[in-house]
């Protein structure tokens, strides 16, 4: 650090501005005590206070008749019928993972799982969305391997399967990797509980691990600042995970809820007891007393501030009626989980902190939560946008299309993710009926005919080029992935990863992205029920690509009708739902511009430019309706959405997963090389590759007329090669090795 800490006022060391410090003084009518200053610095941090996002997030649609709990709780909850509900939430753990990848990612899983069982749900499955820099660089390899291993070690130990996810490698994430963890859980509707404190005189019970000095300042120092050369100094702000204790905590909490012993339940995440207690009190419109001398400690000599803000993992806070306390203790004791009364609910409207008999802090609850400052930074379109959106000259495309395809399919962003998911237990709980590697994972719901489809999608490169369109595409692609399995999209949970929100360019990206998400979600009528904002994803002043990730859940009424990516039977017809990208009469420049933002342009020509594909929301809906209706009618053998890498990569993936070939004849009328390259590799939206029996083509045609969607028959499943016109002719067996082993060879 350039300055010694002595030169910097305490509030500034804690991440507060001078005007925020003055506002605290005005609220309290005096100078804040140490404990209070520590508490305000966390509650008013970006991470807890959402000060740069709260006003913009109001644009998102959040309600629908089946939404039981929207944003603002530990997780969103939707009703799926038959008395069952699903809790869903995604959350970032980017900065901890960039500092210490294994523990950062592991505790990211631990945190999101706690959010789920805090709602009374049994964690059912996890997903993740990851971003790193160039995986051939040693530090990026270290981060990637550490994160995957950390996610696996925590989730596997808990017995929560990790069923799906996505990972992309782009230079923009080199100084600031992204680790977004998503979990869903299932609950009987009757067990739904919230973190809303109630009942004056009720007791506050802290359950789980003892409190130590780990993770102090995680939310402020780590999550709400950019990275610079002090990165490694921030290592002590990363918490350490203990999945065994979390597993016991899950069992204990669910048993407590089944026995109806709790009035409210919340998890301890960022800012520890401070945020959990004040947010619970705020939601309930009550006051809360906390006595830090009662908190079981891992090490002696911790100050009241340290106890209040420690981010020690695997802890929960419950509100309990006094007469239930002994029963609560008995259940916790059975599971070997300490449970201690540390406070009570009051009518003061204040959070009062005691150290034994001495009151060491007293703050109006509402000043910590709803009255946290809000900043509206003027959004200004960043300079780079105009520059990158221009398409350069039409390059010379490599003649050998087979070699191009081989290079694409073995590239870090398109190759098989088997190396990752083999390290995750993706089957425990015996619900996973579509394993990782299809468009969405599908879980059966034991005891019903239903199934759940789960996916998480984002495309930072598109959002960098056009945050509005890129975010709309993320929503559309997630919905397409859900639909391709035969499920109806139900709800979104979003993780919004951006740079420093105090900058006008980032403010612009953020607002554009939210506008795009709001419009797309409204169009598809899919509510956003939970989410998380992660700002300050910058290192040395350089921001990551704006990266909103969209977690989505869909419902299948009949899980037996689920459909998967791989081609199944020789002789099946292959259909393209949607349209060809090019039209007759376009110039080469116009045709080439359709490759804007594509994986092809990046991998083969090292160019990141242009506009992302256009998205026509009505056309998208019609394509999705056709695919979904056809699956519901039981006539599709396979379905796969077209996204990264375009039509040819989608076709090849259906071949590779199915261990079978395909012969394709594309109707490209003019014999233009530019045109065929663009048709194969452009990433035009609203399209699927599906296969079906020839006898069902008539029925498929009828459905397409009903929903008004386009499709064309483009080929047949069969043989052991993928053949496209006279341009592509590759052996599936020979493509399999580079596709399957690309990550192994990168990291080993």
């Amino acid at each position, binding site marked *: 650090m350039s300055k010694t800490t002595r030169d910097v006022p305490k509030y500034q060391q804690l991440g507060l501005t001078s005007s925020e410090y003055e506002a605290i003084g005005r609220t309290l009518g005096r100078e804040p005590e140490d404990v209070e200053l520590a508490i305000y610095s966390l509650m008013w941090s970006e991470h807890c206070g959402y000060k740069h996002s709260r006003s913009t997030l109001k644009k998102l649609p959040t309600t629908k008749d089946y939404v039981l709990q929207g944003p603002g709780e530990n997780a969103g909850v939707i009703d799926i019928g038959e008395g069952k509900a699903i809790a869903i939430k995604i959350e970032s753990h980017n900065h901890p993972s960039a500092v210490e990848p294994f523990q950062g990612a592991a505790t990211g899983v631990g945190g999101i799982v706690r959010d789920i069982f805090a709602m009374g749900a049994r964690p059912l499955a996890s997903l993740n969305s990851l971003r790193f820099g160039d995986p051939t660089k040693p530090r990026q390899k270290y981060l990637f391997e550490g994160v995957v291993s950390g996610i696996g070690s925590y989730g*596997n130990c808990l017995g929560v399967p990790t069923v799906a996810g996505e990972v992309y490698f782009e230079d923009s994430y080199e100084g600031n990797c992204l680790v977004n963890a998503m979990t869903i859980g299932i609950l009987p509707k009757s067990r739904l509980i919230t973190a809303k404190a109630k009942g004056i005189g009720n007791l506050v019970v802290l359950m789980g691990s003892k409190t130590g000095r780990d993770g102090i300042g995680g939310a402020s120092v780590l999550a709400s600042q950019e990275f610079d050369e002090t990165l490694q100094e921030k290592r002590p702000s990363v918490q350490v995970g203990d999945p065994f204790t979390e597993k016991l905590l899950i069992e204990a909490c669910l048993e407590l809820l089944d026995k109806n012993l709790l009035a409210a339940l919340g998890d301890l995440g960022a800012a520890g007891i401070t945020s959990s207690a004040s947010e619970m009190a705020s939601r309930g419109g009550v006051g809360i007393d906390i006595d830090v001398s009662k908190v079981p400690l891992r090490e002696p000599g911790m100050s009241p501030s340290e106890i209040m803000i420690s981010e020690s993992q695997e802890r929960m806070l419950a509100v309990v009626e006094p007469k239930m306390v002994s029963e609560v203790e008995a259940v916790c004791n059975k599971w070997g989980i300490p449970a201690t009364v540390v406070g009570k609910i009051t009518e003061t409207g204040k959070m009062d902190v005691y150290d034994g008999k001495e009151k060491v802090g007293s703050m109006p609850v509402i000043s910590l939560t709803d009255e946290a400052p809000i900043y509206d930074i003027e959004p200004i379109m960043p300079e780079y946008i105009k520059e990158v959106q221009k398409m350069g000259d039409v390059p010379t495309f490599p003649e050998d299309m087979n070699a191009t395809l081989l290079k694409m399919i073995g590239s870090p962003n398109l190759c098989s993710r088997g190396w990752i998911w083999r390290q995750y237990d993706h089957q*425990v709980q*015996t619900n996973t009926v579509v394993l990782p590697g299809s468009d969405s994972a599908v879980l059966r719901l034991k005891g019903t005919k239903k199934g759940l489809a789960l996916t998480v999608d984002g495309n930072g490169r598109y959002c960098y080029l056009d945050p509005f369109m890129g975010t709309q595409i993320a929503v559309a692609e997630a919905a397409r992935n859900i639909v391709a399995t035969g499920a109806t999209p139900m709800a979104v949970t979003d993780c919004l990863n951006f740079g420093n929100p105090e900058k006008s360019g980032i403010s612009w990206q953020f607002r554009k992205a939210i506008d795009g998400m709001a419009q797309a979600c409204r169009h598809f009528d899919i509510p956003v029920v939970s989410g998380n904002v992660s700002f300050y994803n910058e290192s040395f002043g350089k921001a990551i690509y704006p990266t909103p990730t969209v977690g989505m859940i869909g419902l299948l009424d009949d899980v037996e009708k689920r459909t998967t990516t791989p081609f199944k039977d020789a002789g099946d017809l292959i259909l393209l739902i949607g349209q060809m990208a090019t039209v007759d009469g376009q110039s080469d420049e116009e045709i080439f511009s359709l490759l804007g933002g594509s994986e092809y342009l990046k991998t083969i020509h090292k160019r990141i430019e242009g506009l992302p594909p256009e998205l026509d929301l009505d056309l998208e809906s019609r394509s999705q309706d056709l695919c979904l209706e056809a699956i519901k009618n039981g006539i599709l053998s396979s379905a796969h959405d077209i996204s990264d890498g375009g039509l040819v990569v989608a076709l090849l993936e259906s071949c590779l997963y199915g261990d079978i070939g395909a012969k394709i004849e594309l109707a490209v009328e003019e014999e233009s090389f530019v045109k065929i390259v663009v048709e194969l590799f452009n990433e035009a939206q609203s399209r699927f590759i599906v296969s079906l029996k020839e006898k069902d083509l008539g029925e498929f045609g009828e459905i397409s007329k009903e929903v008004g969607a386009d499709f064309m028959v483009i080929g047949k499943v069969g043989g052991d090669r993928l053949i496209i016109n006279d341009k592509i002719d590759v052996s599936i067996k020979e493509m399999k090795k580079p596709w399957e082993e690309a990550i192994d060879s990168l990291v080993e």
Partner: protein
Amino acid sequence: MKAGVVIFPGSNCETDTYDALNYLGFNTEYIWHRDSSLHKVDLVILPGGFSYGDYLRCGAVARFSEIMEEISRFADSGGLVIGICNGFQILLEAGLLPGAMLHNKSLKFICQTVNLRVENNTLPFTNQCGAGEILRIPINHYEGNYFIDDEGLKELEDNSQVVLRYVDENGEATADAAPNGALANIAGLTNKSGNVFGLMPHPERAVEEILGSVDGAKLFLSAKISKEAVS
């Protein structure tokens, strides 16, 4: 037939195993690690998971659970015991089965479906399998690299105690076919008297068509049929 699934703190496949057994027509009960009785069951199953977090050697803490004394007595008197994955590790630690587990040779956790060859189909756990039949069952572990000294291995082989071996798609026990590096490709084995069976694969994950394989059901059903034949 009555089966009991033991729950240790950190077990996480107990529900899957319970559901699989009930699906296959067993009358199934849970047994808590602090229980002192086995509830008069005919078959005891130690399920998979991470007992005590696997923070020490896998199974090294769970073997001291109160219920383990009862399980030892049950096994000594000829009762049928199956240890799956972490349950297998507990049986090794408890000395009810010979040998030990090392970390996978890749030093990575592995979750995937493997081919297993039935090496001995005369046991109460395999009588519904053909000789040399190939079963497709998922594995899911970090410590499944079985090890025993030369003398121990000879004894296992001489007594036909090796029950399941990792094989490739042609049924050959090649070195590459054992994803974890297990000695002699051993995936499952029994004690000398053939009533205690430990295996790394998870048969409870392969009992229904919807899960992709029903081969695991054969192992459970063998136990059921052998018991019914006796009674």
